[in-house]
């Protein structure tokens, strides 16, 4: 440094970081002195130069320290973090068993939890595609305590009388679309014009249907059929053979799956003006009512208002409304009601899986930490600080945690679409996508799980004491690990009991005789438009020809038609009385029109008398076939054959046969008495055709060809396999059973891995002792027994705790269980047997290893 530099500059310069001083100190000093000399010689203000230079030096001082700090940090990161990362990776690679077990168990658990949460979120928390869907509710009518569809005049009176909400009504009405492409059967709804307002749906184009002949299309139909034609508004399309004007197009994402408030639909038409029979207060023409609360109003207010209205209507119209009541439910509950329990159970199971995985990895890590405590002690003795050890352990677990979270999220993303395509879920129309909230949850779970599993080893690293090499290994955490494993086995037992109970319940359900034999039966719907088939003769001729052609198909057995598909969740009822007692209360009966060999095709057995045939036509006297429950209810202890009924438009019809009861609404649900009429005596335009095949081969293409041949303008809606239709009535049970079994198996697997590694670790710790004992004459069989006993003890403790917990947990699935007691001894026994067997198998390996240890080798080591 230049000697001519004034002392004040020297002091400040010395305060600079050393790196700056060595690199630039002498040059800075040189510049300062030359500047000062220059100022002096040029005759300018020396003081000014002095101050300017000093300010420059002082102002830059803190700035340079900041830059220096930043540089050091960067250097430290690259000089210590990267090597630490490399070391940790190498360590993990050297322990592939531990790494794989940790990543897989945590990954599976995080992925599983994310998956289940995603389902829960879409189904329970956010299932409706409408704004502020929590303000939506459904209004229904109860008659004699039984849910019936809403009568139009009642809806009108509610709508006009209610001040707390906007009410809208809709009813199903499907139509055939022709022109501009192949004929298509469209699912349609007739709606009040305010429905879309009430739901909060904004139109993509145009407006609601308000007058007859106006139609609104869904986005999908607009895009697929009309190529998203922007000039679609005002265009005429052919529906059921007549022209309809398109007035609007809905935005995408409003095509809801079946059952979600509106049900899947392709087109929407105006419900008004309503047909004449709608004006009858006693007629319930399949209308549903949805409503949106006005802001600031509550469901309780709406309910009391509607109750009051229903009460005054009952007083005013005692004949039709005397036994009616109104039911108000919020839309979210309606949509997710039946899924609440199964998903709640699955959510709990996923949590159990996560806990088991965390317990397992924590246990594995603890073992590893103990095994490394020698190494750590050595490193401490060589001068490594605890923070260095802890940082390395932390990095190791960070790598594990991040990888496991990635594995979990990717797994969930890959699996979810497959899962929602799986029968029971697909039938409920759940759409699945891993969204941002799910990923956020996965990350949070990953962070928490990582922190939890890293804690025991971090604690070990913190307390690692300096040891001299050669000292014996520190005391083991075998006890801790054993209790962890016992806990996991307990959780596995609970899940297995629950899953086994559900599985047995499902078997019971499958064993129940639903009244039909659904295997190898294909069903499809045919609806003849009135414009093309104006009179009954043409309708009958069509179905006769269809019947004949379908029977001629190769592989086809019996063919028949029915007006309402059994097990499809809907039915058409009418009040029926016996002719001998016309004053009695009519019996609300499921009424059906059947055609051809329906009973044979569906597998409905004849109990007495005869089935309906083609001879039971319009010219023949009216006859009906009833089911055994109808016969027993109407004529207990008397022969129903030859007796007559009245109702459903028949003055009198004779019972000619009795068939088995069909559990029309699913085997686990209540069903009604049934009555069948021949198509020849009541020609329906819309029929479900059932074709029983000799094999399970799907004859859809051949059936399409036949129909296209008879009437190319006639569309066919989707084909359905009858066994799938039947299965869909128990999808909640199937969902809970399937996923529950999968989760139980995973938890059991994780627990067993834990048990095995704990046992192996215990053996490893005692290998010296075993060797010495064997050298002293102990038998290898005894040692093996001893190790097995230890595993058995852990297993037994786990099973006991698990059974206790299962007694309480099975309450969660009570509503899903059918035909099996909630506390089912068989399921409990099954779960215990599985856990015990698998545990013994898992403990046997380490036990054999213990028995096989070489006393000579041990003695040599000693």
């Amino acid at each position, binding site marked *: 440094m230049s000697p001519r530099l004034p002392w004040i500059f020297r002091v400040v310069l010395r305060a600079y970081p050393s790196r700056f001083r060595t*690199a630039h100190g002498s*040059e*800075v000093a*040189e510049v300062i002195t030359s500047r000062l000399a220059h100022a002096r010689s040029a005759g300018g203000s020396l003081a000014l130069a002095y101050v300017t230079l000093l300010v420059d030096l002082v102002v830059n001082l803190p700035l*340079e320290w900041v830059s220096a700090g930043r540089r050091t940090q960067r250097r430290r990161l690259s000089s210590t973090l990267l090597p630490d990362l490399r070391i940790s990776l190498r360590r993990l690679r050297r322990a592939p068993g531990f790494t794989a077990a940790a990543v897989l168990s945590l990954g599976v658990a995080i992925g599983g939890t994310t998956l289940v949460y995603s389902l829960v979120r879409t189904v329970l928390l956010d299932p409706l595609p409408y704004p502020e869907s929590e303000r939506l509710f459904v209004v229904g009518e109860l008659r004699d305590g039984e849910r019936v569809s809403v009568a139009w005049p009642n809806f009108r009176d509610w709508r006009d009388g209610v001040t707390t909400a906007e009410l809208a009504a809709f009813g199903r009405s499907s139509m055939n679309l022709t022109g501009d492409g192949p004929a298509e059967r469209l699912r349609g709804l007739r709606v009040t014009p305010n429905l879309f307002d009430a739901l909060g749906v904004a139109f993509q184009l145009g407006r609601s249907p308000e007058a007859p002949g106006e139609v609104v299309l869904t986005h999908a139909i607009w895009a697929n059929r009309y190529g998203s034609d922007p000039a679609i508004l005002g265009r005429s399309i052919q529906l059921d053979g007549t022209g309809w004007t398109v007035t609007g197009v809905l935005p995408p994402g409003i095509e809801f799956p079946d059952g979600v408030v509106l049900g899947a639909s392709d087109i929407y038409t105006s419900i008004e003006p309503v047909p004449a029979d709608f004006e009858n207060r006693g007629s319930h023409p399949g209308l549903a009512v949805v409503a949106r609360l006005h802001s600031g109003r509550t469901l309780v207010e709406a309910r009391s208002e509607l109750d009051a209205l229903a009460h005054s209507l009952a007083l005013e119209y005692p004949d039709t409304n005397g036994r009616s009541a109104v039911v108000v439910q919020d839309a979210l509950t309606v949509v997710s009601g039946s899924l609440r329990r199964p998903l709640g159970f699955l959510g709990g199971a996923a949590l159990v899986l996560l806990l088991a995985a965390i317990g397992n990895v924590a246990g594995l890590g603890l073992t590893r930490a103990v095994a490394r405590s020698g190494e750590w002690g050595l490193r401490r003795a060589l001068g490594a600080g605890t923070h260095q050890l802890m940082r390395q352990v932390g990095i190791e677990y960070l790598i594990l945690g991040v990888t496991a979270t990635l594995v979990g999220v990717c797994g969930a993303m890959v699996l979810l679409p497959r899962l929602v395509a799986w029968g029971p879920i697909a039938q409920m129309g759940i759409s699945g996508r891993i969204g941002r909230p799910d990923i956020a949850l996965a990350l949070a779970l990953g962070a928490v799980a990582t922190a939890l599993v890293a804690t025991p080893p971090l604690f070990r690293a913190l307390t690692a004491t300096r040891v001299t090499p050669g000292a014996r290994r520190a005391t083991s955490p075998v006890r801790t690990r054993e209790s962890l494993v016992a806990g996991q086995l307990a959780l596995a037992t609970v899940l297995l009991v629950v899953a086994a109970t559900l599985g047995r319940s499902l078997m019971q359900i499958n064993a129940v005789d639903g009244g039909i034999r659904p295997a190898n039966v294909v069903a499809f719907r045919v609806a003849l438009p009135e414009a093309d088939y104006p009179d009954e003769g043409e309708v009958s001729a069509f179905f006769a020809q269809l019947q004949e052609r379908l029977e001629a198909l190769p592989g086809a057995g019996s063919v028949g038609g029915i007006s309402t598909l059994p097990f499809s969740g809907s039915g058409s009822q009418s009040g029926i009385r016996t002719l001998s007692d016309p004053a009695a209360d009519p019996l609300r009966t499921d009424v059906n029109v059947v055609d051809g060999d329906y009973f044979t095709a569906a597998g409905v057995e004849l109990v007495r008398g005869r089935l309906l045939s083609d001879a039971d036509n319009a010219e023949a006297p009216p006859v009906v076939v009833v089911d055994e429950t109808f016969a027993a209810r109407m004529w207990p202890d008397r022969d129903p054959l030859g007796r007559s009924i009245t109702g459903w438009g028949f003055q009198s019809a004779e019972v000619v046969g009795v068939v088995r009861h069909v559990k029309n609404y699913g085997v686990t649900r209540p069903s009604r008495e049934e009555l069948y009429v021949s198509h020849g005596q009541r020609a329906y335009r819309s029929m479900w055709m059932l074709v029983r095949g000799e094999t399970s081969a799907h004859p859809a293409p051949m059936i399409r060809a036949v129909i296209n041949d008879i009437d190319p303008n006639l569309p066919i809606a989707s084909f359905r396999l009858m066994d799938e239709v039947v299965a869909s009535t128990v999808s909640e049970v199937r969902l809970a059973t399937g996923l529950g079994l999968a989760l139980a198996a995973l938890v059991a697997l994780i627990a067993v891995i834990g048990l095995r590694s704990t046992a192996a670790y215990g053996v490893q710790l005692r290998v010296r002792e075993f060797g010495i004992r064997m050298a002293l004459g102990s038998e290898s069989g005894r040692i093996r027994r001893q190790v097995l006993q230890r595993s058995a003890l852990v297993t037994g403790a786990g099973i006991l705790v698990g059974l206790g917990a299962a007694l309480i947990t099975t309450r969660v699935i009570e509503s899903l269980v059918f035909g099996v007691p909630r506390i089912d001894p068989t399921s409990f026994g099954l779960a215990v047997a599985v856990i015990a067997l698998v545990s013994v198998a898992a403990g046997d390996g380490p036990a054999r290893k213990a028995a096989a240890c070489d006393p000579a080798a041990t003695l040599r080591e000693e």
Partner: protein
Amino acid sequence: MGSTPAPLRPREQWILAALAEAPLHGYGLLERVESLSAGAVRPGPATLYRTLNSLSERALIEVAAVESQGDRTRTIWRITRHGRTTLTAEVERLRTTTERIRQALESAGS
């Protein structure tokens, strides 16, 4: 480095411009910057060397040579190819900016 580097500070522009002419040591650089900017930019020595540090960390300049004379060492700096392209881009950016401002002024005046 990114395709659109952050704008340079005026001091940095002048230092790069001076080095674009010829490699220089610190003191020479101070004089050249002062004369190039017609006295508008006169960085103090600490500011200068911190700026040089920062420019070299961004690979805009590099050390060409270190001259030793007795106990005195002088570092000679030169502009890198990256520094030259960055400066050219900066000049272009300034040109467009002034052009636009000029147009705005003219249209406001008419």
